[in-house]
C-alpha cells in the first residue's frame, strides 16, 4: 500500500487531566490511513469514538502522542482535513450553492470560480435544481449530501465522517451509504469513518479498526476484502465474507460497558 496520508501515534486523550475527576477517553491509539483508503473505526457506544474523532480532526488538544496529516501536525494543518458529522451543520441562511462554497470562500476562492466548482458537484451528485434552495427545504438525506459536497468542494486530503448517517431513516441511510462510497471512490479520497454500525463499516470500508470500551484502545484490525465493484450495499450484505466479518466483529465488540468508578 502507498504511504500514510494520516498517521496517529500513541494518541492519548484525558479529560480534566491532573484533577480528581480525570477521565481517560482514549488510550495510546496508533493508526495509519493510506491514500485512497476507507478506514472504519468501530466500537461500542460511549467508548470514546467521537473523542478520538475530535482528536484526529485536531478539534481538541491531546495529552499524548501525535496526529499528522501529510507529515504536518493536524492542529496546524487547517483545511487539510474535512469532516462531516451526524449534524449537517448547514448554514440556514445560505442557499445550497453558498453552503457548498463555504470552504472555498475561507480559502479565498470566491465568485464565479467557487460557484462553478459547487455547481459541478451539485449536478454530479444529484441535487441539480436545488442550487438556490435553503437547507430548510431539503430532506435529511439531501442535507447530508450537501454537507458531503461542502466537504469535498475544498478538496481536503483526508475526509473524516463521524456517524454521518445515523440520523437518517433506514432506506435513506442505505442509499446514501452507497452514494457516499461511490463518490469517495470517484474522488479517490482517503476517508476515516466512525460508526457503531458494523454493517455500515463492512459495506463502506477497506479496513476496520475495532476499539475497546473506554478508554478506547485498538482491539483488532480487519481487512474487509470484499470486491470493490460491490458498491450496492444490499449486494455487499449478501456476500459470504460480510456475514463472516459481521459475526466476528459482533462477538469481539465489548457490548456491556464496564461499570464506571
Amino acid at each position, binding site marked *: 500500500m502507498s504511504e500514510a496520508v494520516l498517521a496517529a501515534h500513541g494518541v492519548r486523550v484525558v479529560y480534566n487531566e491532573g484533577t480528581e475527576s480525570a477521565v481517560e477517553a482514549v488510550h495510546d491509539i496508533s493508526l495509519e490511513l493510506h491514500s485512497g483508503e476507507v478506514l472504519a473505526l468501530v466500537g461500542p457506544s460511549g467508548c470514546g469514538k467521537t473523542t478520538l474523532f475530535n482528536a484526529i480532526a485536531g478539534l481538541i488538544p491531546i495529552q499524548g502522542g501525535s496526529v499528522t496529516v501529510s507529515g504536518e501536525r493536524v492542529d496546524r494543518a487547517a*483545511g487539510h*482535513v*474535512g469532516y462531516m*458529522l451526524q449534524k449537517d*451543520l448547514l*448554514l*440556514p441562511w445560505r442557499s445550497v450553492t453558498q453552503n457548498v462554497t*463555504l470552504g472555498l470562500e*475561507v480559502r479565498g476562492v470566491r465568485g464565479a470560480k467557487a460557484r462553478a466548482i459547487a455547481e459541478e458537484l451539485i449536478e454530479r451528485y444529484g441535487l441539480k435544481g436545488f442550487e438556490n434552495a435553503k437547507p430548510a427545504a431539503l430532506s435529511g438525506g439531501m442535507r447530508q449530501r450537501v454537507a458531503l459536497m461542502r466537504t469535498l468542494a475544498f478538496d481536503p486530503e483526508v475526509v473524516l465522517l463521524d456517524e454521518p448517517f445515523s440520523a437518517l431513516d433506514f432506506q435513506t441511510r442505505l442509499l446514501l451509504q452507497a452514494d457516499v462510497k461511490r463518490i469517495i471512490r470517484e474522488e479517490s479520497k482517503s476517508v476515516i469513518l466512525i460508526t457503531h454500525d458494523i454493517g455500515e463499516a463492512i459495506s463502506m470500508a477497506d479496513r476496520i479498526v475495532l476499539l475497546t470500551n473506554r478508554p478506547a484502545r485498538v482491539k483488532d484490525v480487519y481487512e474487509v476484502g470484499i470486491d470493490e465493484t460491490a458498491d450496492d450495499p444490499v449486494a455487499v450484505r449478501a456476500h459470504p465474507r460480510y456475514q463472516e466479518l459481521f459475526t466476528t466483529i459482533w462477538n469481539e465488540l465489548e457490548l456491556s460497558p464496564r461499570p464506571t468508578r
Partner: protein
Amino acid sequence: MADPASPPKAPATRAPVSGTRILLYQFLVLAVILAAWEILIHLGVIKAYIYGTPSGVIAAFGEQIASGVLIRHFWVTLQEVILGFLIGSLFGTLSGLALWLSPLWARILHPYMVALNGVPKISLAPLIVVWFGLGMGSKVAIAAIITFIVAFITSYNGTQQVDQDWVRLMRSLGARPLQIFRTIIVPGSLPWVVAAFRLNVGFALIGAVVGEYISAEEGLGYHVYYSGQLYDLDSVWVGIFSLMIMALMLEVVVAWIEKRLTY
C-alpha cells in the same frame, strides 16, 4: 404584525373568519368600550372630571389636530423616538456583536452588563436630562442610551447562542476570527438582533416620553403630563391614544424589517 385580537385557530368544523370581519370586530371592541364608558359617565357611575369622556376625547382630538398642536407634539416625539432608536440600536448591536471578537473583554465587562441589564434603565433619565439639556437632544439621548444597553446585551447574548459546531467547522477550514465573525456570528445572531430591535421600539418610546415628563416644552409626553397637571383628562387621553397610534406604526415598520431579515 402579531394580531392580539385574532382568536385562536378555529376547530376544523367552523368556517374560517375572513380578515375584513376580524377588522370589523376589532373596531367593534373599541366601539363597545367607548360606548360603555360614555354610558357610565351619563349614568353618573364614574365621574367625567376623573376619567374624561369619549365624546370629549374625540372633540379634543379634532380640535388639536385642526389647530396643529397635536401634529407638532406627535412629530417631535416621533423624531425623538426614531433617532434614539436608530442611534441606540445600531451602536448597541455593533458593539454587542463585536464583543464576540474579544472573550477577554467580554469577561471583564460581564458584571457591568449584568448590572446594567438589571437596573431599571429609565432611572438614568434625570441624569441624562441634566447632561443633555431641556430640548429634544436629551430625549433622543435617553432613548438612545436605553436602547443601546438593550441592543448591546441582547446581541452579545445572541453571539453566545450561535452553534459552536459551526465555529469549529470554520476553524477546521482554516478561517480567521474575522472571517468566522462575518460568515457565522453576524448572520447567526440575527434572530437576537431582530428581537432586540423589537424590544427597543417600546424602550425608545418609554425613554422619549419619560424624558418629556421630566422637562420639556413639546412632545406627546409633555402634552400628557401638562394636561394632567391641569386636570384636562380628555387631552391626557388624546396624548395616550396618539402614543398608541405611534407604537402601532413603529411596530408595523419593525415587523416588516423583521420579515426581510429572518431566514
